[in-house]
């Protein structure tokens, strides 16, 4: 288990930085490669498993500068190739390396609207950092330049500088854009269309804005104040934000376009339909979708017992089914809500887990127990209908198939009983069918995802889409990227 001594990290960084300054930051490749990776300061695992404050504390300026000096400033910039929005990674890192943080964040913001969020939650190890020349040279992807942490550092630094400059908006065009859903896709569209001078209204079903960044991803991983600050910036730019408005029910999409005078609409409603396993006992009391469990805890603040009116199960032994970010978030939230034991059940091996590596290791450090190559077979309950146990089945990796992948196969007769009093199902989300049911002429594929072109154009005139409703459950950065492309197409259409 990694014990991190935050003070030692800082002392080390300060002395390394002295050396770098002495050399005026002029280093040869091998010298840069010899600089040690800067470890992220974190809250102590035994303490943090009982609180909701952020786990990763962020680099200090000294650490950030040292880490940035590890970057080899590659001519071909493979890291940029790996980034879904092609952030100018090499260039912003070169600014941090010499302490020019203002220029670094300015460069980042040309491509990303949510750097403080993405720096924290992007799966860097499968995007930019897997491509990094340094990681490859050192034959260890963990030794790649910590691009995400540097991005986070630059964004956090900007917030500490007091109210940042508001992005400039073009003069009013008199055109109106309706944005449906306030997740990263919708917020990106709102920002870009407003900057182009259009008046923008964001309609959100919940009473708060931010989508999954607010109700799904927990505070200990993404402080809500960060998301709220982004929303506040939009408000100050003049974006109209309407909560408690479920497009399709509160008002049909067509009425917005035909009666309310919107010239374009963007659908960014996410993938909000939890999948269940379809096993016996799934409707017992104490079985939740991760969406429900996390929404109660995060958005409705059920962890503030005695203050929040929303109840949440008080489970002592919790099983979480799944191996993605959602499963990790649910498991770690359960610990923070007082569970003595949290068991994570995943059908494949750790290598296949879709969760960010950092979340997996944080979950382990906090004491989540991993049951790999296991699957839930049925959920058992008592006479009152409350969960009492989970029956699990063991799997092993089978022969490699044509693609060389070894898929798990069930081991007959390997069932065992795990006593638990709550089960959280985190095996993915499908698309919410509401817009499909209430809007004529929109084309969806068999999985319920909206079909649209490269620029987000749907089968309906003036209607664009992006994010999880198009991609299936994906990532914040992809949602934001799609939003930006759609906004560019909307802006082009409206200027015709």
């Amino acid at each position, binding site marked *: 288990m990694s014990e991190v001594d935050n003070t030692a990290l800082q002392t080390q960084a300060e002395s390394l930085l002295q050396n770098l300054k002495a050399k005026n930051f002029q280093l040869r490749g091998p010298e840069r490669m010899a600089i040690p990776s800067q470890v992220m300061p974190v809250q102590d695992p035994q303490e943090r498993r009982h609180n909701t404050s952020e786990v990763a504390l962020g680099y200090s300026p000294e650490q950030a500068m040292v880490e940035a000096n590890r970057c080899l400033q590659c001519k071909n910039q493979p890291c940029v190739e790996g980034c879904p929005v092609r952030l100018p990674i090499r260039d912003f890192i070169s600014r941090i390396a010499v302490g020019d943080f203002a220029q670094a964040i300015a460069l980042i913001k040309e491509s990303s609207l949510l750097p403080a969020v993405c720096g924290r939650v992007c799966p860097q190890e499968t995007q930019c950092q897997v491509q990094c020349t340094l990681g490859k040279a050192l034959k260890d992807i963990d030794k790649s330049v910590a691009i995400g942490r540097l991005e986070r550092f630059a964004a956090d630094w900007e917030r500490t500088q007091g109210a940042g400059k508001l992005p400039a908006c073009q003069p009013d065009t008199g055109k109106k854009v309706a944005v449906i859903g306030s997740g990263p896709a919708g917020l990106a569209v709102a920002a870009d269309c407003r900057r182009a001078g259009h008046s923008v*209204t964001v309609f959100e*079903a*919940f*009473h708060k804005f931010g989508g999954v960044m607010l109700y799904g991803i927990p505070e200990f991983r993404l402080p809500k104040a960060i998301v709220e600050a982004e929303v506040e910036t939009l408000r100050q730019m003049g974006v*109209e934000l*309407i*909560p*408690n*408005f*479920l497009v399709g*029910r*509160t*008002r049909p999409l067509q009425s917005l376009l035909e009666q*309310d005078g919107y010239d374009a609409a963007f659908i960014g409603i996410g993938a*909000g*339909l*939890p999948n*269940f396993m379809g096993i016996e006992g*799934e*409707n*017992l*009391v*104490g079985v*939740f*979708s991760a*969406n*429900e469990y996390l*929404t*109660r805890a995060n958005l*409705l*603040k059920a962890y*503030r017992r*005695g*203050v*929040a*009116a*929303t*109840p*949440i*199960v*008080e489970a002592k032994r919790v099983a979480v089914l799944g191996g993605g970010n959602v499963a990790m978030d649910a498991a770690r939230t359960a610990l923070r809500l007082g569970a003595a034991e949290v068991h994570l059940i995943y059908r494949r091996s750790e290598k296949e887990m879709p969760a960010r590596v950092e979340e997996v290791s944080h979950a382990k450090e906090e004491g989540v127990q991993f049951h790999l190559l296991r699957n839930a077979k049925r959920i058992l309950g008592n006479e*009152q*209908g409350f969960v009492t146990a989970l029956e699990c089945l063991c799997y092993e990796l089978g022969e490699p198939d044509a693609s060389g992948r070894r898929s798990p196969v069930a081991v007959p007769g390997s069932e065992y009983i795990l006593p638990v009093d709550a089960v959280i199902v985190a095996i993915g989300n499908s698309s*919410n*069918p*509401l817009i499909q049911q209430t809007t004529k002429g929109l084309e969806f594929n068999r999985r319920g995802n909206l079909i649209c072109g490269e620029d987000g154009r749907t089968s309906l005139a003036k209607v664009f889409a992006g994010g999880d409703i198009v991609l299936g459950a994906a990532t914040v950065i992809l949602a934001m990227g799609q939003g930006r492309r759609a906004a560019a197409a909307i802006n082009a259409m409206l200027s015709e």
Partner: protein
Amino acid sequence: MTIKPYTILYKEQLSASVFLMRIQAPHIAAERQPGQFILLSINHEYGERIPLTIADADTAEGSITIIFQAVGFTTKQLAQLPVGAELAVLVGPLGRPTHIEKIGHVVCVGGGVGVAPLHPIAKAFKQAGNRLTCILGARSRELIILEKQFTAFADELIICTDDGSAGRKALVTEPLQELCQSARKPDLAVAIGPPVMMKFCVETVRPHDVPIVVSLNTIMVDGTGMCGGCRVTVGGETKFVCVDGPEFDGLKVDFDGMIRRLQAYRPQERRMDEEHECKLSKLEQR
């Protein structure tokens, strides 16, 4: 687009624990149809979101009517709010509207506060040209609500109380059974009320091949299909009440499963209630 504040325009106590409120929400009043509901919360940061059926709407005033029993933590606090106060959260109309058509003879059965959501549905069936029999049940006379309103449009109105203090001393299933056996056997039954009542209404009509629609009021969080907290088993399949319902074919609903799921937070609710009462009584002592 501007959304007006969700202000309480009118408040009336219908019985010891049942309240009626009209709430400013022109955008919801304009779209709502019989059978739909809203979610509300009375505190933006720490409130609980609860579903309540829309009992009526007034497009001229731009308001919707809700009728609720002050039983849970949130409904008790809601009942304390005065006219002029604003709700923190109000979203709707949610759920699929009732399928209204002319089919002949419709019997609408309501129990307790279930009479409130039944009201717009019964009225719509009458307006569609059906013969309408209404059976309203409550524990005692004081708990009967909306009797006058129902009298205004029902072809026949049967009141039942457990203690016989008004109408027949009977459970609602008794007149329902008689009706099914009579020459005026209904073509459709609609039952809304406590889950146990709906369950027994279903069992009453089942042998007579009378189709029955029930409206389920499960625990909800978002009301948009995102959490699955509202799920019930209908005909062996899992359904989400907030988006697939709230109305379902009563003959197919697993009421026992639903009743169990409604118990989920009883222990916590009781404790919150006690803590709250305790705080209140301390305040009063001061």
